């Protein structure tokens, strides 16, 4: 069995192992047994996709060419991880609270859920990552070819292109199988992460094994190895300062902004706690990965024939020494590096492409027409699968087009500079409330343009895309626009040159654009939530749910999440709200929760647009804007809310006290009323009984006496009847059961009738009227009004003690009110009695005339029913009553029904 065949076999077995590990992890997670899947160790190991084949093989090549400089690629991420308290902590927190699915999603979400930004980020990410994927394919094919070369029995060399194709196809299969198992990007890809963690162990182990073999096996220990370095071609530390600092910064930036790094760092993160372990464990991993790079490079330079590719020393050194097992392990390490990077990059890119490009287009063209449960979900999954295939296919095409040449080797740093363009928008969005969408768009566009022009396009070589004349004389012959010497910055390293200019211009445009533009309310809201992510973990909602229909929302959610998940979410929220069934109240809180849940599936911008379609536009309420205001305003808001609450409480307490007082008074009144009634009834009853006993028991009564006593009994029963009539009347009025008999007539006629009924004038009682004023047409219950007038006139007749008694009846009409005053010339009513005269059984002083004291109480009730009022008019020398009544009122019979 040849080494090549063995390699193929081992490789296939390894792939089978990866598939089964991923499958087992997915199964365990699904059955809820996978708590160890979410450990910080797995998280740390998954971060190792930073170390691609480019670093596995390329670091040695890098070191062989420029010494210790290679280490900058690892120092940047080390510093970022060590400084996790600054940025990563916040990034992870925001990513989880906003259910972020990708870096494009985060940036778009921060800047008002702008899909334009998301598309821009997605395109730039695809452009920067595709060559990187090609680079991984190349490394696998190159390492495979290295094996084939050493194998004399392999008759025909395997075609490099076909190897790459097979690898690409296998990776696509794996990624589609385990990367798109569930739609919700927030339900982590346990299988993928687990496989990656395994690959991380394999590649670290492989590189360490090769390193140990080189140091102790080939060089004879640490001391001799160091001596060897001293005498090698890279003995002197000749790193340029700008490259050292620049590359460290660049790798730090790329560590945060590479789509695949963002995927494992933020999207797949389960808990903040994992960061604490990764903060030291990942730097340790990086340190171990780079520990033996320089020795391997030096020994390789020393022992390998001149012209051997230093990028493959990790593989060719063991092969040359006949250590086939070690070589195969080393191959597996490189294979692991390449595949894990491609898998995660494909997942990250496919999420971005499907969420921000395919789904919006599909939703736009299909509208909300096809309403089938889960149809959006199907489309989204399909879009994601196709995107994965597409991304890998693009990588393969790029690999074929470039011919696998040395141009690819440089693409790593070029891609870093490309994705570093996201950093200003990302960090600005996390730390600066004033960052706006306009600024982010301007910065990203300008930075990406400079990157394309100064680094990416020139990387294809002169005359490939940019003509030679542009290199020599600049765009349109403008010397200051030369891609390698922008603004006259000549003799700079191309990567550092492009990095400097692109980021400078990017940041400047970002800041300037932000300063000059004014953000929309939703942008300000998101900005506040992102920057104050530790302040307001549950931030205010952006939806006003009044218009939203829960049923429509459920239908839409079912389309995206699938029927079961959507119904589970809805019924959970309904239960929390205390509503039975599946349809919760569309409260702002619920809408925001739903939007986040949907964002986990289709991205923030699409989810926002879809909810907006149903709810009818995001309403940023006054409360939300208050929340956007700065901290002081926040505190003020809270305290004012508290104040309002306590005021409300005080108000309620006051109302309760009043109600209580009223109840007590009514109770007292009722008692008084009852005792009054008994008293009033007893007096006539007593005399009736006494006189009827006299009539019965006294034998010799004269007819005169008999008739006198019978008259008394009769009078008393009349009085009793009147009293009962009055009581009945009052009770009917008070209970509102009275039916008004609406008629129309003049006031004059009414007063005439009332005066007549009250006994007319005469006998020392005179009534003065001005008839000219009484020509008023009235539409009301005339009988009831007459009852009031009669009562007032007869009261004056009874109680006015002046000689002669004169009653003035004055009529005025003002503001649509008819006012009739009854003023006599008697002593009037003492001030302290004004309040009680309208109460039941109230009689003033020692009455000279009999009466139950119900008249004025009945008058008051009648006037209330008629929509008017009767009141005592003080300051008129005599007793004065004012009856006022609106002239134009629909006398509410309705009121009678109350």
């Amino acid at each position, binding site marked *: 069995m040849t080494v090549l065949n063995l390699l193929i076999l081992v490789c296939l077995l390894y792939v089978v192992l990866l598939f089964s590990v991923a499958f087992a992890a997915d199964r365990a997670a699904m059955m809820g047994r996978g708590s160890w899947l979410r450990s910080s160790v797995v998280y740390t190991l998954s971060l190792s996709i930073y170390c691609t084949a480019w670093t596995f093989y390329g670091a040695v090549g890098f070191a062989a060419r420029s*010494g*210790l400089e290679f*280490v900058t690629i690892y*120092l940047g991420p*080390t*510093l*970022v*991880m*060590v*400084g*996790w*308290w*600054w940025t990563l*902590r*916040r990034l992870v927190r925001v990513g989880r609270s906003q259910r972020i699915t990708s870096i494009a999603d985060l940036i778009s979400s921060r800047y008002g859920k702008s899909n334009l930004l998301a598309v821009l980020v997605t395109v730039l990410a695809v452009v920067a990552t595709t060559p990187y994927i090609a680079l991984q394919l190349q490394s696998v094919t190159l390492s495979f070819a290295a094996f084939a070369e050493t194998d004399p029995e392999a008759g025909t060399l395997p075609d490099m292109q076909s190897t790459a194709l097979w690898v690409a196809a296998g990776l696509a299969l794996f990624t589609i199988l385990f990367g798109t198992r569930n739609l919700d990007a927030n339900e982590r890809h346990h299988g993928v992460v687990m496989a990656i963690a395994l690959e991380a162990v394999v590649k670290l182990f492989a590189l360490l094994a090769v390193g140990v073999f080189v140091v102790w096996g080939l060089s004879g220990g640490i001391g001799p190895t*160091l001596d060897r*370095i*001293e005498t*090698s071609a*890279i*003995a*002197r*530390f*000749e*790193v340029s*300062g700008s490259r*050292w*600092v620049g590359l*460290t910064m660049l790798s730090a930036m790329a560590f945060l902004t590479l789509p695949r790094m963002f995927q494992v760092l933020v999207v797949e993160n389960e808990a*903040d*706690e994992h*960061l*604490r*372990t990764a*903060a*030291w464990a990942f*730097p*340790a991993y990086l*340190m171990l990965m780079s*520990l033996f790079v*320089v020795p391997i490079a030096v020994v390789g330079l020393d022992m390998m024939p001149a012209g051997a590719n230093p990028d493959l020393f990790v593989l060719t050194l063991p092969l040359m020494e006949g250590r086939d097992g070690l070589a195969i392990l080393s191959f597996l390490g490189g294979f692991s590096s390449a595949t894990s990077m491609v898998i995660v990059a494909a997942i990250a890119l496919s999420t971005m492409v499907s969420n921000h490009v395919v789904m919006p287009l599909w939703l736009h063209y299909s509208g909300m027409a096809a309403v089938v449960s889960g149809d959006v979900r199907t489309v989204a999954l399909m879009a994601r699968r196709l995107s994965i295939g597409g991304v890998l296919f693009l990588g393969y095409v790029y690999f074929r087009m470039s011919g696998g040449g040395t141009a690819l080797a440089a693409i790593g740093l070029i891609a870093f500079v490309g994705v570093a363009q996201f950093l200003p928008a990302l*960090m600005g969005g996390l*730390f*600066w*409330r004033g960052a706006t969408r306009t600024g982010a768009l301007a910065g990203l566009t300008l930075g990406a343009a400079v990157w394309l022009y100064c680094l990416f396009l020139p990387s294809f070589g002169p005359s490939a895309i940019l003509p030679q004349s542009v290199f020599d004389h600049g765009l349109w012959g403008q010397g200051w626009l030369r891609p390698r010497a922008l603004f006259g910055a000549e003799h700079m390293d191309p990567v550092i040159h492009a990095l400097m200019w692109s980021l400078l211009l990017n940041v400047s445009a970002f800041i300037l654009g932000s300063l000059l533009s004014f953000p929309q309310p939703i942008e300000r809201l998101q900005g506040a939530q992102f*920057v*104050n992510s*530790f*302040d307001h*973990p549950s931030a205010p909602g952006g939806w006003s749910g009044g218009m939203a229909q829960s049923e429509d929302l459920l239908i839409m959610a079912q389309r995206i999440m699938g029927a079961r998940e959507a119904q589970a979410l809805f019924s959970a929220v309904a239960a929390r709200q205390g509503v039975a069934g599946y349809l919760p109240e569309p409260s702002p809180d619920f809408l925001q929760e739903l939007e986040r849940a949907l964002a986990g599936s289709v991205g923030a911008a699409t989810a926002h647009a879809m909810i907006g379609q149903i709810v009818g536009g995001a309403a940023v309420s006054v409360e939300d804007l208050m929340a956007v205001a700065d*901290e*002081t305003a926040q*505190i003020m808001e809270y305290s004012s809310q508290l104040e309002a609450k306590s005021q409300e409480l005080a108000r309620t307490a006051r109302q309760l006290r009043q109600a209580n007082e009223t109840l007590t008074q009514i109770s007292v009144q009722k008692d008084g009323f009852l005792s009054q009634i008994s008293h009033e009834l007893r007096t006539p009853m007593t005399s009736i009984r006494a006189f009827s006993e006299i009539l019965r028991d006294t034998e010799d009564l004269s007819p005169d006496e008999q008739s006198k006593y019978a008259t008394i009994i009769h009078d008393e029963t009349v009085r009793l009847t009147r009293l009962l009539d009055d009581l009945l009347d009052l009770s009917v009025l008070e209970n509102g059961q009275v039916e008004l008999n609406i008629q129309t007539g003049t006031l004059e006629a009414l007063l005439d009738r009332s005066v007549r009924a009250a006994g007319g004038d005469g006998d020392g009682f005179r009534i003065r009227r001005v008839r000219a004023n009484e020509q008023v047409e009235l539409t009301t219950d005339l009988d009831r009004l007459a009852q009031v007038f009669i009562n007032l006139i007869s009261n004056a007749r009874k109680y006015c003690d002046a000689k002669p008694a004169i009653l003035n009846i004055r009529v005025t009409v003002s503001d649509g009110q008819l006012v009739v005053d009854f003023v006599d010339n008697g002593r009037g009513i003492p001030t302290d009695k004004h309040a009680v005269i309208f109460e039941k059984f109230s009689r003033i002083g020692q009455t000279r005339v009999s009466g139950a004291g119900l008249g004025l109480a009945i008058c008051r009730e009648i006037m209330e029913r008629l929509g008017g009022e009767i009141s005592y008019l003080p300051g008129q020398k005599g007793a004065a009553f004012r009856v006022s009544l609106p002239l134009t009122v629909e006398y509410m019979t309705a009121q009678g029904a109350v």
Partner: protein
Amino acid sequence: MSPERTPLFLARRTYRRRRLADAARILPLIGGVLFCLPLLWKGSPTSDSTVQSLIYVFGLWVVLILASAIISRHLRLDDNERDGTRSEHEETGGT
């Protein structure tokens, strides 16, 4: 900002935690500066060898990892949020 919002002085434990967070923030800056130190040795006839830089860089790396491990171990993520926000605002001013 309302004066009563944050107390002027803190209990000993809170104080320690805050200084620990300060240390966590400053660690990458120190690391960044120290990693640039080999640049200063360039041209010096005695000390610009790759081996020396190699040992220095890896030694510093190990120190950073240890420091980070110690700080992260004692830094609680659920430190009271207010502490976090207060410092966050200082950060905003600083970045």
